[in-house]
Every structure is written in C-alpha cells, then in structure tokens.
C-alpha cells in the first residue's frame, strides 16, 4: 500500500472513533455540557487534560524548536510543564471546591463585581481565540501536505469533526474523545522516537538514548551532535542559549504562569468529583504530558543529527562529503514542493552546503573550501517532527501514524478551547449578566449555538489567517499570565484583596504586557508601528516580548495589593467565602449549585 492510502486509512479510522464516542457520550444537562457532570475519574481526566493542553504546537513545533535551539529551548520544556505544579498547589483544589462552571464566574463572585467578570471574559476569549486559530491552521496544513487535498478542504473536514462531537457532547463528549485522542497522539509521538533512538544509539528508550553512546562508536550521542554542529560553525547544541539568562528566566516564568492561567486547562479541574481528585488530576495530567515532553528532547536532538548527516555525509571540507543536489532523498523533494525547505546553489557546484554563514570565525574556513554562503536558505522548524520518520527511513505506516497524531493534537485542543469560549458566552455573559432568567434547556441550547458560532469564527480565521497569528501567541500567554492567574491566586490566598484592587490589577497587568508587546512588535502587529524596534538592544533588561507576561503578572500582584490596602476591605460574606473554599469539607453541597 502506498503512503497516501495508509494515511487515509489511519486518519479515517481515528475520525470514525471520535464520532462514535460522541454519539455514546451525549450531554443532556448544562452540568454535563460545561463540566461533564463532575463525574470524570482523575486518571481519565488527567489524560483528557493532557490532550487538551498538548496542541499542534507541542506535537509539531516543539521538537523543531529544540532541534535548532538546543539548550535554549529548555524554556518551553520547563515552562509548559512547571505550570502544572502551580495549578495543582495554588488553584485546582480551591476552584473545584468553589464548585461553579467557569473561570470568570469565580472572579466575578470572589470580587463581587460584574466588571471583574466581564474583564475576565474578555481576557479568556482573546487568549482562547488566538490559540484556536493556530490549531485550525495546523489541521489545514496537515491535510494539505499528506492527503493532498487543498488547505481549505482540510480545514472544512476538521471543522466538521469538531462540530459533531463538541456541539453534541459538550464537555462530556469532548472529554471522552480527548482520551482517545491522547492515546493516538502519544502513540504517534513515541513510536518513531523509539525507532530512531534504537537506530542511532541502540537504546530503545528515547529518554536514555540521549544519554547513551552512538550505536556505531563509543562517542556519546550528545558529544557527537555538539561536534557535528560546531564543525559547521553552528552554536554548540547543549550550551546555546536564548538571549540572556534573565530572558530565559522570565520566559520560563511567563510560560509557567500562563499555563496555570489558561482557561481551557483550568476548567478541566471543575470536572472531577472531589477536591481530592482535583489535586491528583493535575499530577496525572502531568504524567501524560511528561511522556511526550521528556521524549521531545530526544526527537529534537536526533532529528538534528540525522538532518545534518544527510547533507554533510563526511568530513567537513572534503568536496565529496557534501551531498549532490541531484541525489537528494525523496523527503527532501516532498518538503521542497511545500516551500518549507529551500535550496539555492550559491557556489554553483551542484552540491549542498549547509553551515552557519553568520559565524565570522568560520568564514575563512568556508572560503577556503570554496563555499559561498549557506545554501539551505530555508529550513522551517515545523517540518522536523513530520519529516523525522522519513529522514530516518521508517516504514510508511509510521508516517501515517504521525499525521493522525498531529491531527488528534490539533483537534483535541481546538475542542477544549471552543468549549471555554462557548461556556463563557452562554454561561457568563448570557445567563450571568444579560439574561439571568433563561431556563436550563434554553441555556444548554445557547451553549450549543455559541459553540457552533465559535467553530464558524475559528474556521473563518483559519481560512483567512491574520498576519499577526504567530505574534499573538505572546499575547495569549501574556494575557493569561498577567491577568487571569494573579486574580485567581490572590482570590484564594489573600482575603484582603478587594474589587478595586483586582480590577485595577488585571487592567494594569494586561496593559503593561500589551504595551510592551505592541511597542516591539507593532500596534495590533501592524508592521512599521513598532516604535521601539523589535531588536534585543531596545528590550527592557533584554527581556523578549514573549517573555514579558512574567513582568505583567508581577505588576498585577503589586497594583492589586497596593490598591486593596488603601480602599475598603472586602465585605464580610466574601471573606467567609474565601475561608470556605480553603477547606475541602462541604464540596459536595457546593457542587449542587
């Protein structure tokens, strides 16, 4: 069977599975629609949370980032896992005890303020939409590359699948589908990693493979990689950094706080039966996430090694050691046709030279070899995971599996985000603020309509991706880190923070983060409006815009606590509410709503 048939088979089978689950787990009440009736076992919920959290970015982009940034990419590994410690210790059990449906609902009630609730809804929707656009794009790209449909058709199919199981099943349908999607994606991620680790190091466990020696010599794999990249003028893999140490510190902190403040992750903790379960759910979620995240460094480093060795087949400087362009492998041609990989024969020798031509120390050597600049003019980092099995010459079914896995990652995250958007519209805006008198069945209907609307909107942005889609990731994490997380944490740990403090803290936190991102990346990301320039010399203490959420969060904490000190303390019943959510006892009653 050829690759395309197998790919259709794998993708078709997984899609049939997701729809089957959706029929089986239909939601009948708002409780089931928003929080799956609070009846999901912690292990199952942890698995669903992991699928919810690990997006197309984790599945496709992260290993590529690691491959080309080496040690510097550690910020993503630590940042996107360490946030779960904050979630488990500082938020999850208390939000579960509070026992409502949405994040803005907690903020509105704790700070006895509709304004606070509306500000939270706005932050939530902005952060979630940004993410959904990225998932939709991932779905379209995966389809167009591997099923050879056009991008638009791929996107419509993806929207249709998400529509069926999320509108019908709500959180209940989404949760059970996500469990299936987790299994597909983790299998798809680890199988090629095991094969490649076995090929390169002889050790089938990728986490140990990176600590092992090469299969064909006694050199350690990482030493070998360091040698290969530095011989071509690139930075040494295990020590190359991303900006300054302060930047890496702030970047990691932003991602951690942002993770703990992203609404589609937080609402998962409303779905467990007990406070006790909320604590362990975070642990189980991290177990399932860690399987992928500890494999990613192996995937990244081994993909880099394979990639370098494909082009530079022997000692640097020998003419025959650079592969002839005409003899390039099939995967190289496939990716060239997508435009994500580009070659330009600068010295006209018909061979490919891939090296770091920005390295001044290496320039002299390169000149003496007759090289006239790096000829791999484009190597898109995002192709690494998808191309990896082809580069390592793995069988076709492994490649098909990776496609199904990438789609599972994108679909599961899209569904979780869409639910967060839909519930904040139907529950917070409609039921909570504008039409409090609607009945449960009307609210359930409104939830479904909001979900369908959110899918249509996400699809629209997927078809017409705004130019700023890539840049908005900074905003999504910035918003979550600088507004939602501090408001939630202070709501639980500081009884004295009042309405005025929380609202001004959130606004100050978002405000300064947005201002910083805009002044370096352009107002609303319009090119040419970045009045301070995007380059590192103009960064505040060398902190990149993507890493600024941590500073925004600190500002939020400081402003909220400062303002609360000089204004009236929260009313008595709010202080009692805080005391009540701090102890697990009585959680069942709270869940009755």
């Amino acid at each position: 069977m050829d690759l395309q048939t197998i790919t259709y088979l794998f993708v078709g089978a997984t899609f049939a599975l997701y729809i089957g689950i959706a029929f089986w787990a239909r939601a009948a009440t708002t409780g089931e629609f928003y929080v799956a009736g609070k009846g999901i076992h912690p292990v199952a919920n942890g698995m669903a949370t992991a699928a919810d959290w690990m997006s197309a970015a984790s599945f496709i982009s992260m290993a590529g980032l690691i491959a080309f940034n080496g040690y510097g990419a550690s910020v993503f590994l630590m940042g996107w896992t360490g946030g779960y410690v904050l979630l488990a210790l500082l938020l999850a059990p208390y939000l579960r005890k509070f026992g409502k449906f949405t994040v803005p609902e907690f903020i509105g009630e704790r700070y006895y303020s509709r304004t606070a609730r509306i500000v939270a809804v706005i932050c939530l929707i902005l952060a979630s939409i940004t993410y959904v656009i990225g998932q939709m794009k991932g779905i379209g790209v995966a389809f167009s590359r591997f099923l050879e449909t056009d991008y638009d058709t791929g996107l419509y199919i993806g929207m249709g699948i998400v529509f069926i199981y999320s509108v019908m099943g709500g959180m209940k349908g989404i949760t059970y589908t996500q469990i299936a999607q987790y299994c597909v994606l983790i299998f798809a991620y680890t199988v090629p990693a095991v094969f490649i680790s076995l090929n390169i190091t002889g050790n089938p466990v990728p986490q140990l493979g990176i600590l092992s020696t090469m299969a064909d010599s006694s050199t350690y794999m990482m030493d070998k990689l360091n040698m290969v990249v530095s011989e071509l003028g690139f930075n040494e893999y295990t020590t190359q950094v991303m900006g300054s140490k302060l930047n890496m510190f702030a970047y990691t902190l932003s991602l951690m706080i942002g993770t703990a403040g992203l609404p589609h992750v937080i609402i998962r903790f409303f779905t467990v039966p007990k406070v006790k379960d909320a604590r362990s759910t975070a642990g189980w979620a991290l177990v399932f996430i860690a399987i992928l995240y500890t494999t990613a460094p192996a995937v990244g480093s081994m993909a880099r090694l394979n990639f370098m060795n494909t082009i530079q087949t022997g000692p640097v400087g020998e003419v025959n050691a650079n592969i002839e362009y005409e003899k390039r492998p099939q995967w190289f041609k496939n990716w060239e046709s997508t435009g994500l990989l580009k070659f330009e024969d600068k010295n006209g020798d018909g061979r490919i030279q891939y090296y770091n031509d920005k390295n001044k120390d290496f320039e002299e050597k390169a000149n003496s070899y007759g090289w006239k600049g790096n000829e791999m003019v484009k190597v898109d980092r995002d192709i690494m995971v998808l191309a990896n099995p082809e580069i390592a010459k793995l069988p076709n079914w492994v490649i098909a599996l990776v496609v199904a896995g990438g789609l599972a990652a994108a679909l599961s995250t899209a569904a979780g985000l869409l639910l967060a958007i839909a519930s904040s519209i139907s529950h917070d805006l409609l039921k909570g603020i504008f039409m409090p008198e609607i009945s449960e069945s009307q609210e359930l209907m409104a939830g479904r309509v909001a979900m369908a609307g959110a899918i249509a909107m996400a699809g629209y942005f997927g078809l017409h991706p705004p130019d700023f889609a890539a840049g908005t990731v900074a905003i999504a994490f910035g918003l979550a880190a600088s507004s939602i997380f501090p408001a939630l944490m202070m709501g639980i740990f500081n009884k004295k923070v009042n309405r005025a403090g929380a609202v001004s803290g959130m606004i100050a936190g978002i405000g300064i983060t947005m201002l910083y991102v805009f002044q370096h990346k352009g107002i609303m990301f319009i090119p040419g409006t970045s009045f301070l320039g995007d380059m590192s010399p103009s960064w505040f203490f060398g902190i990149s815009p993507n890493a600024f959420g941590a500073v925004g969060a600190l500002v939020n904490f400081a402003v909220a606590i400062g303002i609360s000190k000089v204004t009236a303390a929260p009313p008595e019943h709010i202080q009692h509410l805080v005391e009540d959510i701090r102890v697990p006892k009585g959680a069942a009653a709270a869940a009755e709503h």
Partner: protein
Amino acid sequence: MNNNSGYWKENLRLVSVLLIIWFVVSYLFGIILVDTLNKISLGGVGLGFWFAQQGSIYTFLVLIFVYAKKMNKLDRKYDVHED
C-alpha cells in the same frame, strides 16, 4: 475557626517547601547555575542541561503527587475531608 486556621497554616508551609524545590530544580539548576552544573557530566550531557530538559520535569511530577498525598492526610488530621 481555630481548627481551620491551623489547617491553613500547615497547608501554606507544605506549599512553600514544595515551591522552593520547584524553583531550585528549574530556575536554579536549569538556568542560573547551569554552567557550574554542566561541569558534572552524565552520559555525555552536562547535569545542568539534563535538569533543564529532563530532571526538572520528573521532579515536578513527584512534587504534585507528594502534595496530593500530604494534603489528603492533612484533611483527615483536621477533619475537613469530604464525606
């Protein structure tokens, strides 16, 4: 109320200890002291690099399960557990 404030104090103490470890393995070992720790080699990889890409994640896992276990015990000690 006294009962609950004792519970809350013990909870805060536990959370502080765990968050200090959280900070040490990621920010201290993985970023601030990475060059020093990299002098110790572990299978061709510096220890600082290993903490940044592997060790910190394993530690995070242990931290959450320790927290869940200790809190469940604490709930019973102060009789604030569910059902």
